């Protein structure tokens, strides 16, 4: 029997209920007892050294506390840590996989091409690219990995358009088997129970975040109601209504658009007894009419929502599913709705292009382009008139046409999104990559660290300044003050600046030797930046970094006291009594 191909799969932890997490779970469940492959999980979001209790070998990639301590406060490093940047080397060294498969947003792999193992290991990146223009980082990583997979054909086409061939679309391996049409009788009973028997129910299942086009949908719903006053329509928004910090304030928009609040329904769930019901939104933390618990009823949230069986019931109470969004990686609810037997209206942009056509069991929603501030990505703002027109179209749709669309939707799911189809595609990619010689890495990017703007905080000329850096902690800052009399004696004409984190500034309050206390910045550890190099004049005549030998590297331990200092390092006033 030939040796199994060992694949290290690096993504969200397989028990996380995220798109990446579900994908991880499903591919590992499908491959862990395969004859051809051996799989190992490298799980983002779990600390290295933890027991992940998976049926296959697994590692957490989140750094151990000693590493976290070192990168604390550096947002870029903390972000890299969450993507496994600091522990993946150790895992690769331990496992020596034939193939590294990284599944994440493309920026998660920043600097991976510089890792020592990258050049010797076959590498596949399976990433979500949801907007145009495609990030430069994707083109760069395409050159530096053996195979690039994307979650949506939109991304594949975008890259091919610019000459980046070999990119292949494999949708995320999501299990839709919990979603199916319920028998008509059961469906009617449910609708009756929730008091929507005679209504035309338009549904949207989503995490309440700004890329879901809630105002557009409300506006489209309003136009539809105005154009069709004879239809008793309800809009069911299955989301976390209370999430206003990163999502939409839905009640405010309902009010603003002068929509009758009783026409927009929320899903309420009792966190105690698990029962749910549909109702116009009326705040959170309500008492449960089912189990009697107090303040236990909330609208759906990502932490503790309805279970899959209940969610399937919710889809089955809808008459049409409408999913307007600015862009997205896969948008799982669109496929869930199709599986539950719904015609889906989807914005025809980004991953929506895999679901919105008639051949895919959907109807496209028109959109206009806008540019996202800061990133300049093209985003879609879905046309409310298109929403209204399509809602009307589906309402009036003959039964045969509807059945045709549902059939197409099912075909699309079975052929493109079913887990076994995805697994077979993945296996083919693994074999192909394994049999192809390793691609050479084209070039490498270097880390850059920009300097803080110190000029406004400094007095006099560069030649007048000395910087003493001691980022932390209270004890170190305190004992370092014992060096200041000697510093002043050695450099009587210089102004002494002391840089430390703000929480330690008060230790230096009133210290007669210090000219100014500065907030520590990581760039202060770059001596060339502080003292100058080439055309850069620097900021200080002298910069001392005594902490490098204690806080960044351990260059002082020496069995405690086995080392000897062969000259006097104490001032005359040093008052040690030993």
């Amino acid at each position, binding site marked *: 029997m030939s040796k199994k191909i060992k694949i290290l799969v690096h993504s969200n932890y*397989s*028990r996380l209920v995220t798109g990446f997490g579900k994908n991880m*779970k499903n591919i590992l469940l499908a491959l862990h007892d395969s004859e051809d492959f051996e799989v190992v999980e490298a799980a983002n979001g779990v600390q290295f*050294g933890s027991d992940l*209790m*998976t*049926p296959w070998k697994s590692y957490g990639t989140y750094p*151990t*506390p*000693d590493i976290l*301590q070192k990168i604390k406060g550096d947002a870029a490093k903390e972000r890299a840590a969450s993507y496994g940047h600091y522990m993946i080397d150790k895992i690769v060294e331990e496992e020596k996989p034939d193939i590294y498969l990284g599944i994440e947003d493309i920026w998660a792999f920043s600097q991976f091409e510089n890792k020592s193992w990258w050049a010797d290991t076959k590498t596949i990146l399976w990433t979500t690219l949801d907007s145009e223009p495609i990030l430069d980082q994707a083109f760069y990583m395409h050159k530096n990995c053996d195979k690039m997979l994307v979650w949506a054909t939109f991304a594949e086409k975008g890259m091919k358009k610019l000459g980046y061939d070999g990119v292949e679309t494999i949708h995320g391996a999501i299990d839709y088997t919990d979603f199916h049409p319920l028998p008509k009788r059961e469906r009617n009973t449910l609708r009756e129970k929730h008091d929507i028997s005679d209504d035309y129910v338009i549904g949207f299942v989503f995490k309440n975040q700004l890329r879901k086009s809630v105002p557009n949908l409300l506006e489209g719903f309003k136009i539809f109601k105005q154009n069709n006053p004879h239809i008793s329509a309800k809009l069911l928004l299955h989301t976390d209504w209370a999430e206003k910090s990163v999502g939409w304030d839905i009640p405010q928009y309902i009010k603003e658009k002068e929509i009758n609040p009783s026409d927009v329904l929320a899903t309420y769930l009792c966190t*105690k*007894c*698990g029962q749910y019901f549909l109702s116009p939104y009326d705040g959170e933390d309500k008492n449960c009419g089912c*189990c009697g*618990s107090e303040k*236990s009823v909330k609208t759906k949230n990502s932490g503790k929502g309805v*279970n899959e069986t209940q969610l399937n019931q919710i889809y089955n109470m809808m008459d049409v599913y409408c999913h307007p969004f600015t862009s997205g990686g896969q948008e799982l609810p669109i496929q869930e709705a199709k599986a539950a037997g719904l015609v889906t209206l989807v914005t025809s942009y980004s991953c929506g292009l895999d679901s919105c056509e008639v051949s895919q069991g959907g109807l496209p929603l028109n959109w206009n382009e806008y540019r996202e501030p800061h990133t300049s990505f093209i985003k879609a703002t879905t046309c409310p008139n298109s929403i209204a027109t399509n809602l009307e179209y589906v309402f009036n749709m003959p039964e045969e046409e509807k059945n045709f669309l549902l059939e197409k939707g099912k075909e699309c799911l079975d052929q493109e999104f079913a887990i076994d189809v995805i697994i077979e595609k993945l296996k083919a990619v693994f074999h192909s990559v394994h049999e192809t010689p390793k691609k050479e890495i084209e070039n490498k990017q270097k880390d850059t660290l920009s300097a803080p703007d110190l000029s406004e905080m400094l007095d006099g000329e560069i030649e007048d300044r000395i910087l*003493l850096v001691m980022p932390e*902690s*209270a*004890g*170190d800052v*305190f*004992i*370092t*003050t*014992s*060096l*200041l*009399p*000697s*510093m002043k004696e050695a450099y009587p004409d210089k102004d002494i600046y002391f840089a430390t984190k703000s929480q*330690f500034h*008060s*230790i230096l309050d*009133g*210290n007669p030797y210090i000219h100014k206390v500065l907030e520590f910045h990581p760039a202060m550890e770059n001596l060339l930046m502080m003292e100058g190099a080439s055309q850069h004049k620097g900021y200080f005549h002298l910069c*001392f*970094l*005594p902490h*490098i*030998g*204690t806080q960044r590297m351990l*260059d*002082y*331990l020496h069995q*405690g*006291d086995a080392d000897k*200092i062969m000259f*006097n*390092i*104490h*001032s005359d*006033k*040093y*008052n*040690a*009594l*030993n």
Partner: protein
Amino acid sequence: MHLIERYSLSTGLKIDNPQINAPFYPVAADTYVVFHTSAKDNLRDYDYWHEVKTILQPLFDKHGLKTVQIGLEKDPTINCDIDLRGKTNINQMAYVVKNCDYFIGVDSFPSHLAGHYDKKMLAIYANTHPECARPYWGNPENQKIIETHRPDGEKPSFSFNENPKTINRLKPDEIAKEFCDLIDPEFKSQIPEVLYIGGKYKIQQIEIIPDHAYGINHDNIFVRMDLFYNEENLERIVSKHTVSVITKKPFKESILKSGKIKLINYVSDEFDIDFVNKIREQGIDMHLICTKKDNLKKERIRFFDYKVFPFDEQAKIKKSKSTINIEDVKNLKIASNKKVFKNKSMHNSHYEANGCKNIDDLMLDLEWVMLYNVPEK
């Protein structure tokens, strides 16, 4: 080499004396001992300061010393007479230390202060050489520097990631005796001897054997249906209190629906899928604990969405027996923060609850107890 010596060599500067402003901060005591129990990382936090303070309390009373705790608000309390956790800034803390009579603490900033002010002090060290981090100023004769035990030539870890923490190898009676040397050496003879402390000793937990519908209010109650299966009493308990349940077999759905169960530890060779689904439907947290090694992988696949923990009772008993001398145990006193309710009485362990007949009961509970003896008067 001490930290400050490294800094001196690195900068080419001579070591003088440190400086800090210490503005007045009122402390309602004339003579007092300061406890500082936590460092910036949990690693250097010693878990048994409360026990140290309890053991030393008669000494403090004898010498008229009040106790003062300084540190962060989040630091665990050790019930000092004056609690200044989170109430002082760095400079006010310096004043409190400057004016104390004795200082007891960990490897942290206040220990440097105590040294600088030449206080009689005790400080404990674990993950580094004390010579590198101990107070650099002050009379060494006033300073008790205690390093944790490192058998077989083990060196400090120099790590922020010790599990278990090596600092906890120090027993509270050892620290108390060392402190006696600073103030009253004869008092040492009155210090109890601690022989063993389990890793979960500090956790406060109530365990109810449901032979009666006990009415106990506590944040952390476990009903041990695995030891005594009684649905009626469980139902009566959950009608009044929120609890966690350990069970070997399913119980009726109405109890699950009570909304008063926060966690179920389901212990079995093979799990009942209906029961698991019902627990899930109620949104109750659940741990699946598999008692048959051969079934572990199969059960982990069947119930992938849950973590399935392995458990081997005999292996646990064997491991406990290798930790301590069984003959010693029979003569020792047991302390525990876990209380067991059985036969309408409260006990310090299942071993005591079962009449101290079967030492295996104690071996299963060993990580929850402290074993000690009290000196004869």
